[in-house]
């Protein structure tokens, strides 16, 4: 840490690179935060967590008891134990609210542009758009079935669509501007559990269904343009574009070349692959990809998982997609080629009954996956398990990684836990102590004999 600061000071290290290193360091040293605590007033399992994208300050949570809560995660409402523990209390909307949902809220997301609006979807077949300031519903979409997941594009400049994954086979796009369904995307053969907008294009939508298929849709065109096939694989990472903006790519190449020797090579047939940046892709796949898949029934029946696709998460750079399925597999897909990268993640077992929410760190180095009662952190590129975050007492259904490398997890035990990198400056605490004038009992060895 200090060496890096020194390097930065002397100019050896570029600012971006320095930032990303600090970030990845922090992200890989998460532990259960003792100093920050969210007082959850939910009375059911927490299904959805999101911090707003504009300020990074307000955490929105939706729970099974049809309650919604918003927490200010930067300013604590009160302190305990002499300022040692900061407590964050929510503004809660529960069933008593006149516009509240009737059944469990499965998804709650912020409007990506500002914190004035948020969107919730529930098992009572409704998607509601809320005004944050008045806590009133400003728009209500009636869906044909239970809503599993909603998504809004953070890049969108030309549309304001809420993509809704429901029990129904069709994915609907709700237009907030008009209050009507703009699109009805049909192609899945079963309910849709996961939906995610692309991080590279505002028109690309990715959905995962209970039929095990992951479909890519271009909302400007009819039908889906790609169905991911788990048998269609490529080994290793696609080489980054050479003319892409300077530093970040440098860094990613560096990290890649460093990790390459350790990477697991999947199928035995093409086990020897030399050259870090070489694409190994099946020729057939690339040929088919250009065709319209709606016409090709063989490709249309491809599956990404054996069983339902429970969660989707696109990496921040928009190049990769992570998918978790009820076959207890986590897969990394190359969005451009639509190929399975054959990274093996050491997942033990996934909760298979409901949709789960994955999280990826900002530099897409680590993916956090809720596995039953623990959250597992995997290295995205090698699939190695980095950490197992154990703190919940029941199954975890969602996690969200904040931009300041904090991780929020919510589970069936009604708790929202904050996982944060260890505090570098314990002096902070002393200062707090001085302010409140009540030093807490020290945690020290206490040998009597």
């Amino acid at each position, binding site marked *: 840490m200090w060496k890096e600061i020194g390097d930065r000071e002397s100019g050896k290290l570029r600012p971006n690179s320095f930032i990303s290193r600090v970030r990845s360091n922090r992200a890989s040293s998460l532990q*259960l*935060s*003792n100093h920050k*605590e969210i007082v959850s007033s939910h009375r059911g399992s927490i299904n959805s967590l999101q911090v707003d994208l504009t300020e990074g300050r307000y955490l929105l949570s939706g729970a099974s008891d049809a309650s919604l809560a918003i927490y200010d995660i930067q300013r604590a409402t009160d302190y*305990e*134990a002499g300022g*040692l*523990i900061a407590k964050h209390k929510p503004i809660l909307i529960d069933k008593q609210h006149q516009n509240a949902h009737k059944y469990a809220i499965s998804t709650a997301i912020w409007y990506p542009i500002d914190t004035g609006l948020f969107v919730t979807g529930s098992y009572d077949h409704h998607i509601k758009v809320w005004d944050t300031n008045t806590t009133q519903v400003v728009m209500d979409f009636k869906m044909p079935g239970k809503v599993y997941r909603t998504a809004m594009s953070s890049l969108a400049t030309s549309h304001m669509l809420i993509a809704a994954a429901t029990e129904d086979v069709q994915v609907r796009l709700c237009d907030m501007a008009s209050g009507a369904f703009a699109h009805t995307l049909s192609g899945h053969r079963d309910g849709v559990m996961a939906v995610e907008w692309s991080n590279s294009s505002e028109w690309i939508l990715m959905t995962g269904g209970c039929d095990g298929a992951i479909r890519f849709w271009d909302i400007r065109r009819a039908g889906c343009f790609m169905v991911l096939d788990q048998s269609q694989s490529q080994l290793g990472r696609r080489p980054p574009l050479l003319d892409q903006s300077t530093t970040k790519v440098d860094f990613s190449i560096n990290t890649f070349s460093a990790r390459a020797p350790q990477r697991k090579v999947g199928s035995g047939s093409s086990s020897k692959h030399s050259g870090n940046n070489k694409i190994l892709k099946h020729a057939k796949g690339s040929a088919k990809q250009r065709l319209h898949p709606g016409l090709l029934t063989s490709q249309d029946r491809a599956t990404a998982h054996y069983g339902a696709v429970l969660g989707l998460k696109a990496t921040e750079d928009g190049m990769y997609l992570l998918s978790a399925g009820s076959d207890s597999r986590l897969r990394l897909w190359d969005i451009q080629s639509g190929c399975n990268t054959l990274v093996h993640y050491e997942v033990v077992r996934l909760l298979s009954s409901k949709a789960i929410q994955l999280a990826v760190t900002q530099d897409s180095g680590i993916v956090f996956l809720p596995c039953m*009662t623990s959250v597992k952190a995997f290295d995205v590129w090698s699939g190695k398990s980095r950490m197992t975050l*154990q*703190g*919940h*007492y029941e199954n975890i259904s969602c996690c969200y990684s904040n931009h300041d490398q904090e991780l929020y997890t919510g589970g069936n*035990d*009604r*708790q929202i*836990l904050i996982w944060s990198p260890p505090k570098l400056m314990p002096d902070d605490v002393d200062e707090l102590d001085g302010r409140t004038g009540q030093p*807490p*009992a020290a*945690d*020290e*060895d*206490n*040998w*009597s*004999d």
Partner: protein
Amino acid sequence: MEWEADDGRTVAVVVGLIEKATNSTKPDLDPRILKSIKSVVRYSDSELRLAVENLMSLMKRDHSQVRYLTLTIIHELFMRSKLFRTLIVENLDQLLTLSVGFRRNQPLPAPPAIASKLRSKAIEFLEKWNTSFGIHYRQLRLGYDYLKNTLRYQFPNLQANAARIQQERRERELRTKEILLKKYDLLKSNISSIKDEVNSIVDEVSECLDILISSKEENVPLDPIDEEDFEDFRNIELRTIRENSLKEADKVQENSENKVVFDALRELYKLLVTKHLVAVQESISVLIRVELSDNRLRDSMLKEFIDIRNHLKLIKKKCEEVGCVLSIPENDEEEDIWEEGTSEPSNISKPVTPNKQNDSPSCSNSKETIANLKVNPNLDPLKSKLLVEAPVMKWGSFLDNWGSNRDHMAHQRGLEVEGHWGRVDYDAVIPANKIAELNVQATVYEEEHKEIPQCRAPLKKGGMCERRDLKVCPFHGPIVARDDDGTPIAQETDVKNLSREELLEQAVKNVRERDKDVIKKREHDKKELKRAKLAKIRGHNDAVLRDAAMASTSVSSAIGELDLGREKDSLAKMLKKKATAKDRLATRLLSRKAIARQVKFGDDDSKYREAFPNQW
């Protein structure tokens, strides 16, 4: 290399200690082993880590006893070491799962009694940990919160309870203080009236006493100075006796003249003792206990009351000297009863005693009754000796003419002559020896009451078998003499005392028996062989299994030859369900046969009902 070797040795130490501590069937840890664990772990972090690992693996054992002991070790270390806390807290949910057993798919293992103890202990420990270290460990808070608010476990709530008890005590004290204050106020207002009352009664009593004393002075007492002169040469005992008697004489005797005075005095005395003295005592205690800002008034009142009390006591003493005794009626009655009881046997014994010379009505069970006789030490030695020897007879009419050697008159109605107004035939006489024959006391043989000795074989649950059987206890075999621990005292048959013939006989018998045994042995030899073979195979299997078990736990191999065998047995025994009488009954009753029989009965019944529907 040396470092490594050193490490290896220490590994064996802490792991071995923990293993030893947990491998016991006792309800508590051996404090010595615990202490050595603590001291080992205190000075080495690496060993602490090893201990944590080992303890967590022990928690996974399928035996509640092991888990319980492990948990107590964990608690001891948790309260002391910070590193231990941080390490344990990382896996707290697992620890709680294994100790509280809140997950349905992972219930606590076998001995259910210990399992419930384990659970309650774990909950108690968690609460303790949470109160003392909760603010430093989020995991502790989470675990506590989860068990308390989500699973609704009942925590002992020690801290809150203590606070509540404190609060209650404080309230009680406050209340008593208030009451005292009230009493004090009452006393303050009443003090003059109390004083008046006391004074009046004191006056009355003293008047009564005056009257009595003045009446007493009429009869002149002996001259005390005179006595002292001639008492010098007498011994002290006699002197005291004399003094007592003199004092007795000094006392005013109650007679018809002063009876009225005595009655009044007694009344007053009673009032004094039961009412006024008690009241004064009480008010003194109130004054002592009451807490006031201004103590002067209280002190003066206290002084007054103490004076009053002393005065009252003085008067009471005087009254007692005169002869007033506060007697409660029930007590009197009891005394009466008791006195009657004691006076009776002495009366009875008197007529019996002089009849020693007549031994004709013999008594079979005289010996044992003699001992019971209370011998009055005041009687002369011959009499007492006779008393000891004399038989105790049952009461009967024959006692009327006990020892009389005369002939008896007889008539048609029997032997009674007194109260017979009719004609008396003086020739009809029954001679004395006939009478004696008639009077022979027949007694029913009473079996000598002998205490049947207890079996006193040691029981597993502690204590001795309390069955009383004559020869053989159905559970523990023949009854033999045992010492206090229940181990039989070997009784050697003293060979020396046997006579020669007996020895010969015995020898012949033994030889014959041996021959028989040999024949039997031959018969059984084949069976034995077979059994031996089977046993060998079984033993081999056991050994293999044991080896496998030892090999699978690295710990056990590290310890080597600890005395695992017996302890293991007992630990395993705890898992086995003991067959209680209930179980045995259940097997009998719920066996297939029994049920079938029952069903059959039922069938019969139903058939019968069908055949005769009008008969219930």
